[in-house]
């Protein structure tokens, strides 16, 4: 029997495959396809203190081996979540995590403080890397001083596991990972989408209403993998790899580069069962290679004997 569980501190995840925020709704969208409790965890659609309508349509365009989106954190706010969504997601027999977003540091603090009280949410992913909001979002995650401030202040009020989701739109993502570790984050997840754009030559206008959006899908995978590898060498807290993982082989690359877990994002749009197929694929691969624990391959390429 192969052990593919992983831990963030004392928080156990039964598999190292989670679903990325904004790509898996609130889980129930996938109930028809498989039992989502099989997953190590689900990270719910990004939440803000107040309801947000998001950006105007069009907010998505397909690009070579990927897509750009500028959804802009459409959600019904914390109060609605507590009342209408929390009771439903609490029924899942897996870790349900919230991805938290703010326009100001105070927003993040207020969210973290209230979510800390939700018994069934064992961890949050602090999103300081959303590229699609005018205020906050990526602005916090692309400046080392503001990143430090928001992580520090959230850490002070949030007592459970804190994961910081990092932006790739920086000169050196390692600096931000180190700041997260220094300020007491329990893990880092990377990468959020890469800022990009596309223009419709027929209409001679940008495809997205916001002009720019976040690039995801296989197109970003090599860049994401490189950043995960760099960060995993620099920090001792767990690294969760995200970026264009479509299948088992893609996921394995992230583990071999140093990720302790992965998140499946855009792949779920094309194959709603991508995450569960990857769990099965990981078990099979490890069994065939003669490993008993997935930990044995985490950061394998950095081991001195190869």
């Amino acid at each position, binding site marked *: 029997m192969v052990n593919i569980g992983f831990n963030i501190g004392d928080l156990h995840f039964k598999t190292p495959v989670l679903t990325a925020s904004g790509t898996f709704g609130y889980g129930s*969208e996938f109930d028809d396809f498989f039992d989502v409790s099989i997953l190590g965890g689900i990270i719910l659609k990004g939440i803000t203190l107040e309801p947000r309508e*998001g950006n105007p*349509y069009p907010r*998505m365009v397909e690009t070579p081996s990927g897509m750009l989106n500028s959804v802009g954190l459409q959600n019904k706010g914390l109060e609605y979540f507590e009342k209408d969504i929390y009771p439903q997601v609490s029924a899942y027999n897996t870790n349900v995590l919230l991805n938290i977003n703010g326009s100001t540091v105070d927003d993040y603090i207020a969210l973290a403080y209230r979510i800390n009280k939700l018994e069934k949410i064992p961890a949050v992913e602090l999103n300081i890397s959303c590229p699609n909001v005018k205020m906050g979002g990526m602005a916090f995650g692309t400046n080392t001083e503001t990143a430090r401030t928001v992580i520090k202040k959230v850490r002070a009020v949030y007592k459970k596991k804190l994961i910081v989701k990092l932006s790739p739109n920086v000169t050196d993502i390692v600096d931000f990972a180190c700041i997260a570790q220094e300020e007491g984050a329990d893990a880092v997840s990377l990468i959020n989408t890469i800022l990009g754009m596309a223009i419709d030559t027929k209409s001679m206008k940008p495809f997205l209403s916001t002009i720019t959006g976040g690039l995801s899908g296989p197109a970003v995978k090599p860049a994401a993998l490189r950043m995960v590898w760099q960060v995993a060498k620099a920090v001792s807290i767990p690294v969760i790899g995200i970026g264009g993982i479509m299948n088992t082989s893609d996921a394995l690359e992230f583990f071999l580069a140093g990720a302790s877990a992965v998140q499946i994002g*855009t792949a779920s*749009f*094309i194959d*709603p069962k991508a995450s569960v197929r990857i769990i099965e694929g990981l078990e099979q691969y490890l069994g065939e290679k003669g490993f008993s624990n997935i930990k044995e391959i985490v950061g394998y390429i950095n081991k001195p004997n190869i």
Partner: protein
Amino acid sequence: MVKRIENLVVVENKSLTKDYFILVLSCANKDISDIKPGQFVQVKVDKSHSTFLRRPFSVHDVDFSKNTISLLIKIVGNGTLALSGLKKNDTLNVIYPLGNSFSIPQPGKRILLAGGGCGIAPLLFLGKKLRSHGFIPDLLLGFKDVEQGLEIDEYNKIGRVYLATEDGSVGQKGYLTDHSILKSEKYDYVYSCGPEPMLKNIARYCKDRKIFCEVSLENLMACGIGACLCCVVDTVKGNLCTCTEGPVFNINDLKW
């Protein structure tokens, strides 16, 4: 209604015009009795390098005796071009059935089905369903030219068909929304699908006359199951997903 992912077998790929074709897909022994008019499917396109996301198509027809579903597809890009090359016995990975459906009217009401171009697709299945409920709807179909006058025979079996073409090659000349039956006839229910400017004109026509009207919208989609929030339409209830809260909307809910 349970959504499922299945490999369906192509029974027939029927070329209609240079731009349009119909794919008939076998659902083998699967129960498809729960598919409703207005719903759509998400098709994975395998033989196109530049096609990453699935492609949504409304259900054109369901043959419950043969257990097949048909998709009427217009070639607009690389994805649909690749699909046009499918052969009998090829398999196609499909997520279905998705979205909401057209509502069934009160008994005895007069109904118009108005479809423009590829927007006629969902109206065949809807028309058949309405016939099974005892309605005999009128159909108003609009095309660019006679070349695109698609599969009218099938629609003739549902009710009286009125045609409009932009070049006047068949039916009345002009847009469907300029057709004289909209002035001469009086309808209680209008169901419509087609290009957005056409739908907006239909909506205005119905609003002015207080006619119940539902339109099927086509927005750019990624997931098709309400997870990504990309395909939103701006409604009086806020941004709603075309894929799960649509594709069929009552015009009173739209900000048109």
